């Protein structure tokens, strides 16, 4: 009886998630094998692997792949390292800690399109942007970040958004450390680097896996930051896999080729998920 009820309670969630993952996946596989352009009236002629050929031989493909990896890895590295450092810094009490925490969490609450436009205009604009104005003040030539170092600018925007998340998760994790153990280590003369190496960093293991997992989900599909600032350009310098598929799907209406790309994106995400899940499953299922 209780078995029946527990199944019944679980079913809606499983059905809903299957509907949003397995069904689209099957449809995407189907679309990727047919010739299907929303602008052409005759749909659904079998097309073999031509769509895949077009997607992989697209000029944007190699840069997009490289940009996606650069973006994901840089943001993760920046947020985990700086986040842990900041987390350690605000771990113990100091005057105004509550306000500092409020200030720190704020970037996480800013929506991506506001984040992107704010950086693009008010901060990075080469003429009136704050950074340009400050560099003029110091007699330097202002840099047009979004056309000279576009990917770097995107990395800064996304890191700014996710650093607070990492920092606060780490801080919460540090709060739960065993104080007596720390005290004992100090008594025995462990210096700060040693405490870091043997106590703090091992303790952060689980928190790091959570941060990496959530960031992986969100950063693999970063969209608004690119959409509202560079539109993938200049050239393909900020085109990510996500953005490339979007361009093929909703700008050239080529459903077939976009679906081939989408399957590739799903594959990348699943490889990432597979490795993460082993670590996280171990950590969270305990």
């Amino acid at each position, binding site marked *: 009886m209780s078995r029946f009820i*527990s199944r019944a309670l679980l079913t809606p969630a499983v059905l809903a998630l299957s509907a949003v993952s397995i069904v689209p996946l099957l449809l995407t596989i189907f679309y990727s094998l047919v010739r299907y352009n929303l602008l052409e009236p005759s749909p659904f002629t079998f097309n073999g692997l031509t769509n895949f050929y077009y997607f992989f031989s697209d000029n944007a493909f190699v840069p997009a792949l490289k940009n996606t990896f650069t973006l994901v890895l840089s943001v993760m590295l920046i947020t985990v390292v700086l986040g842990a450092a900041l987390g350690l810094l605000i771990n113990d009490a100091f005057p105004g800690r509550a306000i500092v925490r409020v200030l720190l969490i704020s970037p996480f609450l800013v929506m991506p399109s506001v984040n992107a436009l704010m950086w693009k205009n008010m901060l990075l604009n080469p003429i009136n942007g704050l950074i340009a104005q400050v560099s003029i003040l110091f007699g330097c030539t202002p840099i047009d970040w979004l056309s000279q170092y576009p990917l770097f600018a995107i990395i800064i925007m996304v890191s700014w958004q996710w650093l607070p998340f990492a920092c606060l998760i780490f801080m919460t994790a540090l709060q739960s450390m065993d104080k007596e153990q720390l005290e004992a280590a100090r008594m025995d003369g462990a210096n700060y680097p040693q405490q870091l190496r043997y106590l703090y960093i091992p303790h952060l293991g689980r928190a790091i896996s959570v941060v990496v997992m959530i960031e992986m989900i969100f950063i693999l599909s970063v969209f608004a930051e690119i959409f509202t600032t560079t539109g993938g350009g200049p050239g393909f310098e900020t085109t990510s896999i996500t953005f490339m598929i979007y361009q093929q799907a909703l700008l050239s209406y080529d459903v077939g080729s976009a679906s081939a790309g989408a399957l590739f994106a799903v594959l990348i995400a699943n490889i990432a998920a597979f490795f993460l899940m082993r670590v996280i499953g171990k950590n969270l299922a305990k």
Partner: protein
Amino acid sequence: MHNKSSSTLLYLRTAFAWFFACVLFFPIFWLALMAFKTEAQAIASPPLLFFKPTLQSFYDVLERANYVDYAFNSLITSVASTVIGLMIAIPAAYSMAFFPNRSTIGILKFMLSSRFMPGVGALMPIYICYQYFGLLDTRIGLTIMFMLMNLPIMVWLLYTNLKELPKEILEAARMDGATLAHEFRYIVLPLATGGIASTALVCMVWAWNESFWSLNLGAANAGTLSWLIASMSSPEGLFWAKLSAASLMAIAPIMALGWFCQKQLVQGMTFGAVK
């Protein structure tokens, strides 16, 4: 001696912490400052830190962009998607936390892996489906999408929360003949309120700020604030004061909520990684 060095350390720590917090917060402060400037002041060189604040940009935005409609769309979609999501996720998490069997971990992993599927992977089928059912650019369509997007994370967060509850209390209640509904209503729910609240908070923030689906499935009718701001990027990009005013109004509600419930928000996001 010891005291002196530890108080120096405290000063240093305080100074650094405040410094980094201010640096990270500065872009938002600057945006807020811009919103109260006139267009001329906004692009003044050198940038103005002190000026006579004006509400003109806010009036302009409210007058022209039907900000209220978009804010209403954001509010409806984020609240409704969270509430519906909870109604599906709570029973599921409850079932897995209190009636675990061999497949529980497998189902959990399936759920989380479905969240790993990037939005673009499902964009084409969902776009075509939405077109077919007339859900494009409707609030219902966006609500469903936001709900499905947050559902896996909701189930995980609730599961890690419910798993922490002492099983003995439940067993005692069952011995006393409590039905499942009673057990849930009088024992589980009161104990899990904190966890449910922080889960709801996280998902509401993510739905409010969501920008992939709202940009691709929404338009002028059901567009959320995220859509409104993105649509201002090209035509109004040069009107910084108005853009800032609109942006500030778009982030203010959720930021106020986040500040107010900061502790729950952070607790909610730890995914049970922190005991």
